[in-house]
């Protein structure tokens, strides 16, 4: 076997791999030979993601019951319009009259949509490309992430930056969740908002783009002790990125439900002190 040494055009080498297409392949021409219940996983993921999208869309548009001092729903934080129940960062004027959540939802949504784990999840469960390993792709043509709109998956890094900023805001919310009108204290909601930011932080900073920026993009670690140290730490949490993706997704919805129930008076937040 010979390989070219120089990058770039090598003599008369063709620009594509010379390969004969259309030759007979072995095995029967069927979508899959798998006898197991391969469809369970994509179905469960489909139902889970659909449920989250449905709930979060409703929660983002409903524009009420998202604040009860000192708790704010993560779907409405940072609240950047003047019509917020809780004035956090009113950089958008009074002309904005619909839900303030709409102004910020694109960032966490974009972060999750372009996330390497969620891409696997929805390509398999929603687009069936492929639905499971060694099960035929449901589409006759395929261009992957080489064309618009899927080439936009390459902006994941930018959503990671935005995601990191959101974690800071939610961290501030978590600290404020101990600052009650009568003074510092701790309620069940304080713990829930704290757990929420911890899970979102683990999800955000275990992301593959973060791992690359921490040090994975280096050719060699020699001479980059701090980045190597960082890369090793991020690699540990990155191995559990899927777990954090699901836990943070479920918990952010749960946090919104909790704040909503407290704010609407359905339940009373238990105070520990």
């Amino acid at each position: 076997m010979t390989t070219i040494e120089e990058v770039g055009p090598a003599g008369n080498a063709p620009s594509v791999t010379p390969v004969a297409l259309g030759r007979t392949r072995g095995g029967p021409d069927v979508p899959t030979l798998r006898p197991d219940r391969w469809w369970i996983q994509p179905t469960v993921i489909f139902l889970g993601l659909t449920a989250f999208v449905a709930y979060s869309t409703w929660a983002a548009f409903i524009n009420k019951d998202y604040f009860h001092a000192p708790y704010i729903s993560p779907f409405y934080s940072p609240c950047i319009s003047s019509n917020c129940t809780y004035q956090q960062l009113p950089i958008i004027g009074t002309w904005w009259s619909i839900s303030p959540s709409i102004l910020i939802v694109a960032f966490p949504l974009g972060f999750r949509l372009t996330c390497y784990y969620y891409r696997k999840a929805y390509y398999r469960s929603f687009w069936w490309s492929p639905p499971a390993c060694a099960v035929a792709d449901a589409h006759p043509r395929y261009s992957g992430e080489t064309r618009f709109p899927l080439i936009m998956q390459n902006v994941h890094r930018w959503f990671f930056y935005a995601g990191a900023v959101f974690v800071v805001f939610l961290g501030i919310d978590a600290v404020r969740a101990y600052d009650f009108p009568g003074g510092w204290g701790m309620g069940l909601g304080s713990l829930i908002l704290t757990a929420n930011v911890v899970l979102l932080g683990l999800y955000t900073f275990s992301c593959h783009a973060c791992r690359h920026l921490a040090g994975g993009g280096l050719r060699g670690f020699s001479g980059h002790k701090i980045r190597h140290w960082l890369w090793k730490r991020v690699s540990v949490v990155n191995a559990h990125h899927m777990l954090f993706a699901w836990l943070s997704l479920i918990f952010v919805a749960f946090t919104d439900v909790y704040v909503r129930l407290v704010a609407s008076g359905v339940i009373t937040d238990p105070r520990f002190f």
Partner: protein
Amino acid sequence: MTDVTMRVWRGDADGGDFRPYKISTEGGEVVLDVIHRIQAEQSGDLAVRWNCKAGKCGSCSAEINGKPRLMCMTKMSSFEEGQAITVAPMRTFPIIRDLVTDVSFNFEVAKRVPAFKPKPREADGTHRMAQIDVERGQEFRKCIECYLCQDVCHVIRDHEENKPQYAGPRFFLRYAELEMHPLDTNDRRTIVREQAGVGLCNITKCCTDVCPEHIKITDNAIIPLKERVVDRHYDPVAWLGRKIRRRS
């Protein structure tokens, strides 16, 4: 001794079908043992490629009950008793005969990977690498070239027309190994994007799932390559950094 029905693909480029073989198996046997017994006792002309019987040569790749696996590493005890077991050749490659496929596509792709091009030697005539950099590449060198990852990859399994412009997981591993080599001076990022087709991969992780060496192909090779392509082609901050560095 347990009786089992093996449905083995028999055929060549002119066509074929599954042929059932009733055969007894003993405790501890693997699928390759049973295929060899069929060959010895019932069908001497059954074609199967194999070599080490230890999961290290990567020769006996096939699709067992529809899943790409090494026949020598698949225990018969892992199947339910009474269940017929299908053994088919790898679907992605053209058939030669029975369970043997023509995997030469992979050799053609291999030829196109720009080779290691080291930095000049140091003053004492040596090349030096830190241990942390040596360790980083070890995972990639575990590859036994069984091509199960290439077989399961839907980009070429279900869309053969992509073969000329797609390297596949096994060779993304090779590209990643070279791109993470501190002594190498080639920059393959544009080739990875334009000729190896990393953008065709939609990271559904089947290559990682089937790898008998448990190499994390997607997390440690393909995604790092995609991120390197982002550095080179889709990140304006990285572009600006390159411009400033070049000017200074």
